[in-house]
Structure formats: structure tokens, C-alpha cells
């Protein structure tokens, strides 16, 4: 959404509240950002919806699209977890508490939470794309919203246990009666009590019921590619399977043309699409 205050290309001034490594190998870093101006915070939270993303800006380096990994109720800040893969993300990794940076957003549609009310949710994530699913789970799990949804099932896979993000909450969720959580790593490790294997296989094994349920999948392309058919085999209809897409992005507002998938712009019309919608679009990912 457009603000009156500044051009949609001009980042909102933010600063780092907390910065910490999310994985033992230091490839993932979480930044919690707070707004320099209360008006920007208000405008942000008026429209923010889990599943949306922002463009984080480091002057002189550029911008990177990152999914929002926090729920609105957590407080007056926005959380992101960035994998260090290139110039902007390495600049983001260099930031510490108190540093200034820019942010544009929230962008995109986010998850269709209103349509999902009263349904059972099957949330399936892998790798660092789990960030927006973390925001979703935190939102749904909050006492103010929990009653709106049915059963909550979470499947979360990472290559190793060290790459598991948000460990504190994940550990707590294992103890939580209200939620069924299945965690997986790709290869066996000592003292690992949960699944070993790839997410699509774990999904088949756990076999969540498709009755009155929606499934939402976010992960690396290869995981998504094999998880979607697994869900179809389990009886989920394409209308009830959702995923969040990524493509290279620049403007984030459907202007620069870069992220098109057929006639849709992932930044503006997505990034969340149902499998039914995807099936009607060209295979240009």
C-alpha cells in the first residue's frame, strides 16, 4: 500500500533493535527492526498481514526482499531472518543493534487468513523460507486468534538441527498440547528425537487429514515441488493448498516487470498463491 508521506521507492527509516545469529553455522541472521517514527509504525501495522514481505535497504548496496518473521501482537518491531548469499544480505549480516537501515513494505498479499477461518491448518516449511510460516504460526497461536482456527499441525524440516530457526519457540511448541509439530532433519544426528528425512516424505508419513483443512507450503523450490503433489495425493484440493513464491525482485510494487509469472507479478499479486491459481499460470519459475 502507498503512503502519502513518501515515494513508494523511498525506504522507511528504521534501526536495528536486536541482531543475532539464528543458526549455528552463522549463515542465518535475525534482525529485529524498529521504526524511527511512530507514524510509520502505525501505517505499517494497519495493513500488515502474515505472509507479506519487505525490501530491506542498505544505502550503497541495494535492497533485498525478506519475508516478515514476526506477528503484529509481538510488539512494535518487525523481524526478518536473512541468509547470507550476496552483497545486500552480507551487508545486512554486518548490522548490529542501533544501526540505521531502510525498509519498504509491507508488500504483497500475505496469507488469506479470513478464508482460512474455522479450518484446520497444516503448515509445512523448510529452510529459511520458514520465516513467514513462523509469523503465521505465531499469529494463529495467539490467544486472540486461536479460536478462529481448527487443528494446528506444523511440519518443519531443515538440513541439520543447527539450521533450525526460532529454536526457543519450536522447543516450546513441542510441549504444547494445542499443536501437533513434526520436525525433521535431512541426515541422522546423535540425540535427535524427531524425524529424519525430506519434508515431502515426512508429510506423506504424517499424512495430515485433508478434511476441512488447508495446507500451506514454503520452502526451497525443490521441497515445494515434491510437497505439493504429496498433498494432492493425500486428498487436499488445489484450492486448499497454498505456497509462497520467490523470484528476483527490484521494485516490489509491480512496476519494474521483473518478477512476473505470466500476467501476475509475484511482488504485488503474490507472493502467496493457491495451487489452483498456480496451475492456471505458465511454468516460468
Amino acid at each position, binding site marked *: *500500500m*502507498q503512503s502519502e508521506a*513518501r*515515494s*513508494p*521507492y*523511498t*525506504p522507511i*527509516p528504521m534501526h536495528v533493535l536486536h541482531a543475532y545469529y539464528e543458526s549455528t553455522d552463522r549463515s542465518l541472521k535475525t534482525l529485529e527492526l524498529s521504526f524511527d517514527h511512530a507514524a510509520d509504525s502505525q501505517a505499517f501495522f494497519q495493513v500488515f498481514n502474515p505472509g507479506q514481505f519487505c525490501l530491506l*535497504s542498505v*544505502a*550503497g*548496496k*541495494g*535492497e533485498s526482499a525478506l519475508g516478515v518473521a514476526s506477528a503484529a501482537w509481538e510488539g512494535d518491531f518487525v523481524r526478518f531472518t536473512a541468509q547470507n*548469499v*550476496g552483497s545486500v*544480505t552480507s551487508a545486512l549480516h554486518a548490522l548490529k543493534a542501533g*544501526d*540505521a*537501515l*531502510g525498509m519498504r513494505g509491507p508488500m504483497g498479499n500475505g496469507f488469506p487468513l479470513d478464508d482460512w477461518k474455522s479450518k484446520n491448518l497444516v503448515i509445512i516449511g523448510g529452510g529459511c523460507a520458514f520465516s513467514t510460516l513462523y509469523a503465521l504460526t505465531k499469529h494463529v497461536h495467539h490467544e486472540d486468534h486461536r479460536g478462529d482456527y481448527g487443528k494446528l499441525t506444523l511440519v518443519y524440516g531443515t538440513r541439520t538441527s543447527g539450521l533450525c530457526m526460532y529454536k526457543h519457540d519450536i522447543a516450546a511448541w513441542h510441549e504444547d498440547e494445542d499443536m501437533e509439530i513434526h520436525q525433521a532433519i535431512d541426515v541422522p544426528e546423535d540425540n535427535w528425537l524427531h524425524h529424519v528425512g525430506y519434508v515431502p516424505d515426512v508429510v506423506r508419513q504424517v499424512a495430515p487429514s485433508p478434511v476441512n483443512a488447508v495446507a500451506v507450503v514454503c520452502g526451497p*523450490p525443490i521441497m515445494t515441488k515434491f510437497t505439493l503433489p504429496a498433498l494432492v495425493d493425500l486428498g487436499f484440493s488445489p484450492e486448499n493448498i497454498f505456497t509462497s513464491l*520467490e*523470484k*528476483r525482485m*527490484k*521494485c516490489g*510494487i*509491480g*512496476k*519494474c*516487470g*521483473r518478477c*512476473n509469472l*505470466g*500476467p501476475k507479478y509475484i511482488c*504485488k499479486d503474490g507472493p502467496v498463491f493457491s495451487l489452483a491459481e498456480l496451475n492456471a499460470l*505458465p*511454468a*516460468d*519459475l
Partner: protein
Amino acid sequence: MNLILEKQALPGLLQSWREQYDVYVPQKMERFSHFMPLTEESVLVTGEPHNTRIPPKALFLPMTETLVKFTRFGGYEDAQQNVQPRVVFGIRPCDAQAIQLLDTSFIQEGYTDPLWLERREKTITIGLGCHQPCHNGFCTTVGYGPFNKSDLDALLTDLGDTYLVETLSEAGEACFQDLSPASDDIYEHALEIQQIAHDQMPVAFETENLKEKLEQNFNSKFWEEVSQSCLGCGVCTFLCPTCFCFDIVDETQRKQRVRNWDTCMFRTYSLEASGHNPRPSRVERTRQRLSHKFVYWLDQVNQIGCTGCGRCVRYCPVGIDIRAMLRQAQTLPFEVSHAV
């Protein structure tokens, strides 16, 4: 309103607009014509049987422009563009039509590009119809035409020693307020010229079911065949009046973030940080170029995203011809879709 303008009086009229406006007219630049600011010495180019090389979209979406300024303490400021009220004279109907198409992308509720909008609001566009068919153009094939009025404030028809001026908005009327009205006979005569020009444009390819054919043959060998000799230079998209893709880059020395024209014909355009590229070769990139114009624009606003200006045909260094590609596409198999 229909008015008569003596050709002799045109230079004086253009100069008189300079009191109120920045005036842009096509002028010679090396071997090509180009929209440039009018000065006392400017020589207007109107007689060429084709368009300027660089389309006038550049007046609304400059090849490079500042989006954001970096301030001293890590902050950001909107770029100021300081656009004066302008008249663009001599814009051809295909290029004006392209501006209208671009409006549908740049001006959307909640998603308007402020830089584009400001330039649009401050610009009066005066068109010059094409009374002789241009080389390589195919405007009528794609549903537009040599005297198309879309997005113009006034349209001129060449009648020999005079122009018929059809004003199409208040701003257009104001530009020509001192002219005398055209008689009905002259107007009829101009319409005839317009009709003849329209009828002289050859049909370059059939558009019926073209969208369905391109859509349904997304994975066809066809794309390999038509992209075989492509160099991936990007000229066809750079000079296209409806192409609008841009890159955003930081200029550290100048402390600013700019946007530059970009093209889907480049490999790096869609290359992701992971190394994955959804369009790794010219096959996929050619498919994107054609599909955008002849499939996706139709899905989005129910208009073909090509105005038939002919530039991609004229300037492709290896002679790839979009008209031939689309004629070949017409031979592809397809099923009638019953979707509404």
C-alpha cells in the same frame, strides 16, 4: 474542434509555446531522429516515413533517473525531478497508444508511480498522424491505427500545405486557440486521407486465437526455432514503446538509488542469488518477450501490448522479425478454450 494550420505557421507556433512550456519535437540526432527540447535553432523532422529511433516513452520513463537520495546519516529522501509543464509535438499515434498502455501499469490504485504520474500530468501530447504507411509498421494489425487518437490532446493530419488539427482536450484546444476552423469539406477530405492511410497498412499477421496458440504452446519447439539467431542484445525491448522494465541500482559516489531501463532479454534479468534462473536461455527470454505482448497484456487489460510501431523489426541487428514469428505462431496447433 477542427482547425486549420498553415505549415508555414508551424515553427512560429511551436516557438510561441516555449513561453509557457518546455517543448519537445523530433529533431535530427546523428543518423536518427529523436525527441529533443526545442530551441531557436531547432529543425523539426516531420517528413520521415517512420518513427524516432528512441520512443517518446523516454520522456516519461527516462533511461536513467534518480529514485531516492541517500542522506548523510543513513537516511533516505525522495528524489526531486523538477518537471516543467511540457508539450510533446509530433508524437506518432502508435507511440501515444503505447503511453496509454504504460499508464495502465504505472497508474494503479494504491500502486502509482509518482515520477511517471507527475510527468504525465504535466505533459500535453500533440500527435502527427501517418498519412503514408511507414516501413515495418503494423499498427492496424494489432488493432490500433495511423490516426489513432488514444491519449492525445490533439491530432494533426497532413493535407499538403496545411494540417488539419483535431483538438481532443481542453489543453489541446488551448495550444491552438488562434487558428481558424476547418470547413466541412476540408474535414471530409482529411477523413478520406486518414481512411486511405488506414487501408494501406498491410495485415502483417492474424491476431485471432493468437493468444491461445502462444499460451498453449508454452513448451513448444517453436520457441527454439524463432530464437535461434537472437543475440540477446536487448535492442528490440529497449526501443519498444511499451517495454517498461527497469533495474534499480545504487550509485554510491553520487549517493543515490537510480532506475535504469532493463530488458528481459538479458540473462541476469531473472538470475537469482541462489544461481537459479527461471529463464536460463534465449528460448525462454524470447518466449517472455512475445508472451508479455500478446498474452499477458491481454490477460491484464484486454489490450495487445504491441502498438505495431515496427522498431523491433527495423533495428534488430540480425533481422529477427516479430511479424514473421507471429505468422509462424499462427500455424501452431491449439484448442478453442471455453473459459469466460
